[in-house]
């Protein structure tokens, strides 16, 4: 018995790594398909976009994260864009920091390709249905300036085209012309959006954030400053589940599959902590 305990106590780290890697990769190859319960903050956002934005309406998504949180936030952006495409809502993307603009571009090319492949009867075009504003430094200043004049704030899109020349810009001048905005970020920049865009210009908005930061923003949901929230990979997965339920997209997507992996990963950690502590206690008892 003690031999096993000793062996387990001094086990090579690499076995631990291997167990975790297998636990996370396995669900990708053999999906489990955990059922998903939809939480109110997610369904609120979904319903608002689904019911309250008219056809041809305008949605703004600000991509304010960097690679370190992209795994959680990227699927949210994709799900939101797909939803807007299906409702024929125009989507604008932007980034307050340089990394966000790069990530937003990736998001656009991905969703456009996927959508046009599976919906040949409703082709979406860059510049007509979706666009990405150029990067402008200034963060909260940019948010404020958009309330005065969006065209004057950015001048061009991220591909160097004059905004005035884009069909998607028709009638879009300030926040008044944007029906809904979602900020995707893992940092406190969400607060700047809430304080300036919502506080000063009454922009209707939703939040997409990481699992770590979720707890901070409940207060803003309660106060009504934001009407919906997607939290972490789970939030994204719930949104995808809603899209599938309403036949917007057919197959399970990134976040939903990721959720299986997340589940098995968490269970692995829990088992590690428990086993590690059992060994610790047995050894301590023996030492006494």
């Amino acid at each position, binding site marked *: 018995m003690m031999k096993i305990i000793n062996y387990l106590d001094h086990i090579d780290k690499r076995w631990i*790594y291997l167990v975790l890697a297998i636990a996370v990769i396995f669900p990708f190859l053999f999906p489990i398909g955990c059922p998903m319960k939809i939480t109110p903050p997610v369904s609120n956002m979904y319903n608002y976009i689904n019911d309250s934005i008219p056809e041809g309406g305008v949605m703004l998504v600000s991509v304010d994260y960097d690679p370190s949180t992209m795994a959680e936030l990227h699927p949210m952006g994709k799900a939101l864009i797909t939803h807007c495409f299906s409702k024929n809502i125009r989507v604008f993307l932007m980034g307050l920091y340089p*990394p966000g603009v*790069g990530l937003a571009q990736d998001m656009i090319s991905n969703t456009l390709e996927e959508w046009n492949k599976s919906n040949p009867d409703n082709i979406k075009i860059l510049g007509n249905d979706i666009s990405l504003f150029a990067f402008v430094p200034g963060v909260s200043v940019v948010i404020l300036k958009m309330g005065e004049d969006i065209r004057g704030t950015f001048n061009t899109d991220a591909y160097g085209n004059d905004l005035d020349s884009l069909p998607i810009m028709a009638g879009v001048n300030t926040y008044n012309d944007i029906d809904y905005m979602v900020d995707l970020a893992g940092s406190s920049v969400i607060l700047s959006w809430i304080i300036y865009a919502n506080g000063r210009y009454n922009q209707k908005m939703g939040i997409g954030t990481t699992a770590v930061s979720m707890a901070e923003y*409940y207060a803003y949901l309660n106060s009504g400053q934001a009407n919906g929230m997607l939290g972490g990979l789970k939030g994204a997965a719930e949104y995808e589940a809603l899209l599938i339920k309403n036949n917007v997209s057919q197959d399970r997507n990134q976040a939903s599959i990721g959720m299986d992996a997340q589940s098995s990963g968490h269970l692995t950690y829990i088992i*590690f902590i428990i086993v*590690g502590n059992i060994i610790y206690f047995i050894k301590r008892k023996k030492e006494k």
Partner: protein
Amino acid sequence: MIKGKGIPLAISFLTGTIIIIAFFIPHAPFGSFEEISLRWYSIIAGFTMLLGVDSLLRLHTNKIKRKENHWAYSIVLLFGFLLIVIVGIISTIRYGNAFLTGSGFMYMYDNMIIPLQSTMFSLLAFFIASAAYRAFRARNFDATLLLITAIIVMFGRVPISEMISPKIPIFTEWIMSVPQMAAKRGIIIGIALGAIGVSLRIILGIERSYLS
């Protein structure tokens, strides 16, 4: 006199107090002080960063010169640095702004920095696993409490827990929005007061170790 700490202490005192006063006085010239010093701050603080980059590059050029162990990797580092700077300059000349999508600079960012950085951070998932097994011990009441809460939260945040009981996710949310929030508020208030304390000690010159 110039070599002593007198002048720097006076500078800290003056800049600190002026900014605090300017916070309450919108009238010129105070109104613009905060904005000006913020701009200066970002310019000067950037040089601290440049100094670090300079030391790092110097460390590696020296390694190459002396042909120390693994000096070839230092060449890789310098190559990476020069590559992105040159690409950045070329992109700026071609597009007017290196941060435009489609410029070579952003291409390097998207396809090299993004994957490398996120992979680097994801290594932590493995280190946490090994730490969970080897270092996170319920050695006392506090640590036990911490680990139990962590296990509940990890479990409650994934769909499996719903299959066992729908109450588990609700309980997890409650932990996040009630006791977690309370502790966080307390700690934040403490840190805010502590920061005020340290700031005042520095402005008043009681704390001066940073000038060594």
